[in-house]
């Protein structure tokens, strides 16, 4: 066995008054590295030991204020920048509504930070290898004795003096505390194969569990993500109907909105006489008409209606819309051509609603007027 290294001298007291006196004396004698161990905090002990007030309040203050600020900024960025959605007519950045969350975040982070700072930084815990652990002294101060410890590290430490000092104070069980052999030769156990093996196993286990949960478990019943529903999907078979189809045809005679059957099929002249354009000439109507004309009519008729097809002769060019004939046609007559088709032009009823057709008619009038402007238009 190698030589023992002295950690310090300890002495025990029976009453709170005597330990307070001993602490006062130790402090006034100039010991710096001494400590008092009591089963519960004693009033006035900080003063007796001349300990400064704990600075942990500053940790709470700094962490609390900065997390409050972080919460405001995070909510501002989320609600006003990254995902701006107006809710209940409130401004995107509604500070009053954020107060509860700011408060909770402040309390949560400040509490966690204060406690962790105290335990890990101020106390350097966990520390189960301290020389005092496993001594009789510790067993006593845990229950009902009040102990004082003067460390060997102290500048004024001198074995004989310290013993004498403790005796003078009236301490009992004055005894030295030594470092354990193990504590002296303490090595970090982080690189031990056992520990690394443990880490690897933990990693394997957690990743395996996460994989199975996210990819397998969550797709077993009842986690069906509403994919399985008590309804018939398109193309599925059904035993309810005689024909075995899940999909049904609409009731005979059903008319879709905006698609009333055309009354003048094959009667262009009647259409020209009876149909009147119901739409007013307005900017929005003309814009709608232009849009539809450009999409559906212009490939053959050209953007200006002059028959300048973009189909490069792969389809016969239609006649110009600026001809005398078309210019004198009524709106209804043009509507009839769009609806019913003419020569090789097919019907556009499946592509355009009645309203869109009428808007296109208005736009055709605009094009005609542009090529055959009146004197008055120039003024």
């Amino acid at each position: 066995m190698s030589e023992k290294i002295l950690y310090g001298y300890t002495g025990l007291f029976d009453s709170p008054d005597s330990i307070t006196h001993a602490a006062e004396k130790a402090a006034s004698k100039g010991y710096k590295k001494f400590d008092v161990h009591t089963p519960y905090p004693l009033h006035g002990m900080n003063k007796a030991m001349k300990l400064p007030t704990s600075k942990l309040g500053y940790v709470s203050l700094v962490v609390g204020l900065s997390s409050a600020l972080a919460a405001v900024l995070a909510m501002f960025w989320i609600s006003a920048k990254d995902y701006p959605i107006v809710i209940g007519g409130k401004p995107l950045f509604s500070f009053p509504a954020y107060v509860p969350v700011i408060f909770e975040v402040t309390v949560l982070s400040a509490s966690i930070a204060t406690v962790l700072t105290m335990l890990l930084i101020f106390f350097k815990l966990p520390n189960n290898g301290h020389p005092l652990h496993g001594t009789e002294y510790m067993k006593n101060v845990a229950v009902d004795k009040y102990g004082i410890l003067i460390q060997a590290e102290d500048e004024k430490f001198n074995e004989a003096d310290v013993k004498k000092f403790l005796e003078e104070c009236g301490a009992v069980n004055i005894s030295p505390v030594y470092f354990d052999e193990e504590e002296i030769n303490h090595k970090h156990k982080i690189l031990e194969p056992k520990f690394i093996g443990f880490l690897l196993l933990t990693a394997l286990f957690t990743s395996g569990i996460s994989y199975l949960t996210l990819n397998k478990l969550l797709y077993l019943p009842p986690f069906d993500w509403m994919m399985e529903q008590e309804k018939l999907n398109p193309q599925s078979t059904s035993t309810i109907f005689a024909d075995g189809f899940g999909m049904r045809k609409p009731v005979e005679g059903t008319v879709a909105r905006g698609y009333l059957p055309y009354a003048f099929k094959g009667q262009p002249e009647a259409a020209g006489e009876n149909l009147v354009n119901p739409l007013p000439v307005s900017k929005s109507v003309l814009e709608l008409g232009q849009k539809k004309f450009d999409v559906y009519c212009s490939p053959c008729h050209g953007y200006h209606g002059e028959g300048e097809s973009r189909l490069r002769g792969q389809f016969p060019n239609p006649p110009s819309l600026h001809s005398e004939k078309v210019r004198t046609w009524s709106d209804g007559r043009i509507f009839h051509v769009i609806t019913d088709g003419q020569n090789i032009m097919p019907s556009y009823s499946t592509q355009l609603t009645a309203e869109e057709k009428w808007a296109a008619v208005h736009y055709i009038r605009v094009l005609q007027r542009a090529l055959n402007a009146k004197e008055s238009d120039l003024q």
Partner: protein
Amino acid sequence: MSVVDYTKELSVIEGKPPLRSLDDLISKPLETKPDKKFYIALSITLSMLGLFVIGLGLTFWYGIGMWGNNNPVGWAFDIVNFVFWVGIGHAGTLISAILFLFRQKWRTGIARFAEGMTIFAVMTAMLFPLIHVGRPWLDGWLLPYPNQHGIWTNFTSPLLWDVFAVSTYFTVSLIFWYVGLIPDFAVLRERTSGKVKKLTYSIFSLGWRFSNRHWNHYEMVYLILAGFATPLVLSVHTIVSFDFAVSIMPGWHTTIFPPYFVAGAVFSGFAMVQNVLLIIRKIFNYEHIITVDTLDKMNKIMLVTGSMVGYAYAMEFFIAWYSGVEAEQFTFVNRAFGPYAWAYWIMVSCNVISPQLFWIKKIRRSVPVMFVIAVFVNVGMWFERFVIVVSSLSRDYLPSSWAYYKPTYVDFMILIGSFGFFFTFILLFTKALPVVSLAEVKAVVDGAQPSHKDH
């Protein structure tokens, strides 16, 4: 009874017991094998917990259609239980934080236990919003985190505030509890001789050595945590009440809700602490640690908060009349005389009338009577939440959509099961951890502090 000298502070712990005997007494349940009664109690709570598991299993498998909830009553037992259990938790924080700030020494005997109850009650409460969303495996979506959907949570919603409030409350309570437990773990570490126990206590005590250089910071942190927990406990039930008060539902849309809910929470929490504590005190022979004086003081708090709750009930009626809002007036008349009048009058008789008996000193100091009253208060406070949630929803602005809510058997399984969940934890707690704080109790025994004679 003799005349009390009010110039002297009464002893918190009766009879000046030796400190070592306190250690022996408090750690006895941890060092002895549980007796038959414990196993009987545990089998009862575990059976109730079994009901909980089955009820939740049915809910998860078939969906929340298994509950009685239906239009227009979309919130029922789930939310009632949530508010009830969160409320139970509030007593623990009040005792450990607010009474600590007010330097009420009598709290030491009951603080640890009440804090433990807070944690278990909040755990029970947290389950309800999580199962209430219908697909509980997607509960992670409640939290604001960057996700592949490209969406964020709504920070103006009281339901989101609830997520923050309840989770913060749980975490801070747990930290508070653990910080208080560290010195006690160290005491147990020094007491035990078993190898596994020693290792466990060493790990949890973090190597605490009762150093006064540590106690100095420790007391400061305890003060700071108490300072945080005090507004926190008030904020939690305030935010829970916002879930209702921020809506436009008649009977919910009232500004009195936050103080009214907080008072109710403390009221029901104290009743629950009282109920469980009376049993613990009897079984473990803690009569001199948890004295009749302490119980008397708890009863006074129940009297105060009970009266506040009664005042709030009256004020709701007054404001309904005074506001002149027809829908509001109808709601309150409907509460007292409508289809849910039975629930309303259970609530009033349990919450308003029964605690008034505590004006009488004899009743305040009689253990069996206070036990019964505390049970009444718990029942009444559960019905208070039932009345608020269900009676308002079942008859709102649109008479054509009125309906009478009836719970199903699954609702009752989950309600009973939640008690099983809570009490299972309580029972295990009494056997696993010291239910009275060793360090705090020792510090308030007569003669435990320096007398400062020569100062």
